């Protein structure tokens, strides 16, 4: 991705927006929620390890 595209905001319209709105309203599965929670916990663990290493 080129650096110039970092700060441009994409806008979804028409059929893209319709598909997006449908996707946005989907309920997550238990597995997806567990994976997301695991990602967050692992991120927090790494933060804690880094904090201890720096102190």
């Amino acid at each position, binding site marked *: *991705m080129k*650096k110039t595209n*970092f700060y441009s905001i994409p806008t979804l319209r028409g059929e893209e927006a319709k*598909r*997006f709105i449908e996707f*946005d309203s989907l309920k997550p599965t238990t597995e997806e*929620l567990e994976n997301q929670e695991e990602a967050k916990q692992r991120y*927090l663990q790494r933060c804690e390890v880094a904090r201890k290493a720096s102190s």
Partner: protein
Amino acid sequence: MEDTSEFNPKVLTFPKISDTFDPNSIDCTDDDNTDAQDLQDYLCNHALSDQEQNMSATYLASYENKILGYCTVVISSLAFKKYPLGKPSTRDEITNYPVLLIANLATDKKNRKIKGIGSEMLRHCVGMGALLSDIVGCRYVMLYATKAEKFYSEKNKTEYKFFVAREENDGRKLMLYRIHNKIERHLSETLDISDSVSAVVKKGNANQPKPDAEKTSWFFRTIRRIFRI
């Protein structure tokens, strides 16, 4: 890294880029040595200065004191037309959602045979997005995929399945991963309960007094006003 069989992604750490890191120590160009996505160029020429100006943050994937790749993240936004098929009013025509943009995610060419580096970097970014959603609000993790679209969209490649929102003219695909908050989690757990429990809940609800919607409806209010009751 010599032995790839013992790679444990959990041991990866993600320090931020600093001036002690030599960006030329890793090679993030494509397998044909081109840098079509400017991944190596960004690492060598912009990553540190952008970070110092709070324009982005670059994290190095470090394993046993070796750098295996990097990822750059930026706070961004996604806009969409709320009523794609109609136009109820001009005021709420465009809606914006807060997102965490994975601007770059690249693996060192020498270590691409090791499975799990990219997935772990992605997990790191999703974890960051999930945490951000608790702190400041973040609804999606967003990225633009070029050659690695399948990596993000196929569930067997990564635990985090991305949705292809659109394809750009240059072939890049705008991809989104939804962050869910705790309220939705609670609702989901409620929906997942067994049928017997659902039946009990329904029965319990049936015994509950109905909301006083009728009493406050326009019709009854008007009747009361006319007859002064």
